[in-house]
């Protein structure tokens, strides 16, 4: 667990705000967490990546990784805060859209058009922030590019990426 001044309420609020950037199915929470906690030094990049990897390996909604982030930030109460932070806006959004589905459709559609591009920018910034401190070697940059191409054009399952990376990591450790 990371020793930092981030508390229960901040975790709930940051996760709730990050939820706003999930329009169109984007990974808004990733970018916001990266910006608020990883870049600020409150959360180690390796722990962030580890929680993300665990989330990709788990079944169900990918938002499950937030429980790991919450735990690293503030222990078990932090995990609960993260879950509340993602459940609350989803609950309100789901109920509102179900209730006013027909009326809200034009507004949602209007926002969802540029949202994909903005989310792409946010994810790129998050990826850059993760990559920068790792000081990737040329071969590793090639690996990143290969994975990106496979994911973007072949819809490769994230679990395969994470498992494959872990397998290659173990093989590399055995060799070296």
């Amino acid at each position, binding site marked *: 667990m990371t020793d930092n001044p981030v508390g229960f309420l901040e975790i709930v609020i940051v996760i709730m705000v990050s939820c706003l950037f999930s329009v169109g199915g984007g990974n808004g929470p990733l970018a916001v967490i990266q910006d608020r906690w990883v870049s600020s030094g409150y959360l180690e990049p390796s722990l962030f990546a580890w929680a993300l990897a665990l989330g990709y390996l788990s079944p169900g*909604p990918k938002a499950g990784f937030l429980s790991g982030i919450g735990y690293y930030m503030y222990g078990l109460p932090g*995990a609960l805060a993260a879950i509340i932070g993602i459940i609350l806006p989803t609950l309100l959004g*789901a109920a509102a859209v*179900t209730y006013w589905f027909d009326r809200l459709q034009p507004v949602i559609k209007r926002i969802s058009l540029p949202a994909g591009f903005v989310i792409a*920018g946010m994810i790129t910034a998050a990826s850059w922030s993760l990559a920068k401190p790792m000081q990737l070697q040329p071969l590793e940059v090639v690996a990143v590019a290969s994975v990106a191409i496979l994911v973007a054009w072949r819809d490769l399952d994230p679990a395969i990426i994470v498992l494959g990376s872990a397998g290659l*990591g173990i093989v590399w450790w055995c060799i070296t």
Partner: protein
Amino acid sequence: MTIELANSSITDKLEAPNNKHVSLVELGVMFFRIGATSFGGLWGATQKLEKELVHNKSWLTVEEQKALIVAATLIPAPKFLAFGGMVGFRLRKWPGSIVALFAILAPPALLVLTGAIFLNPELLGGPMPTLRRAVGIGVIGLLFGNAFHQLRNAKVPRRQRIVGIALGVSVASAAILGVPLIIAALVGLTLGVCLILPGKEKAQ
């Protein structure tokens, strides 16, 4: 005659969902099972959702399920969760939505939490630094791939796509250069609403 009866039976089943007597326990168990056995996010689970919610339980019609999936992609929340919340709300209003959301999120959240507690990379030596670096490289590639995927999936004309890509690059550049990400994104979103107009998106 038999075929007609069979057809009408199927049609009745699809058009008149049996959602009047859904208990919260039943709803919770169903969404926990979906959360524990689905991989690949909402898109990866669509067939499973149709099998369970439409054919096995008759809680939704096929049309309702499709409409909810589309709506789930449009609201500001993770798609899979939003879908669960909307189904729960349709079946049992607020209590149903709360139960469905917690139930569908419980399996991955508990698994990740267990992993975070017992497989904390800081506590493990040996291959962990190499393993973490390799997984980190994979995750970075995955994120860049997701960003490309977002750009590729935008159903807008060429000119608006160029504007959108410029917008995305601007948001990323601003954030990398030190502008708070939330501000960069909100400005980007505001500009995008003005520049990328509805009604001009490509037909699917």
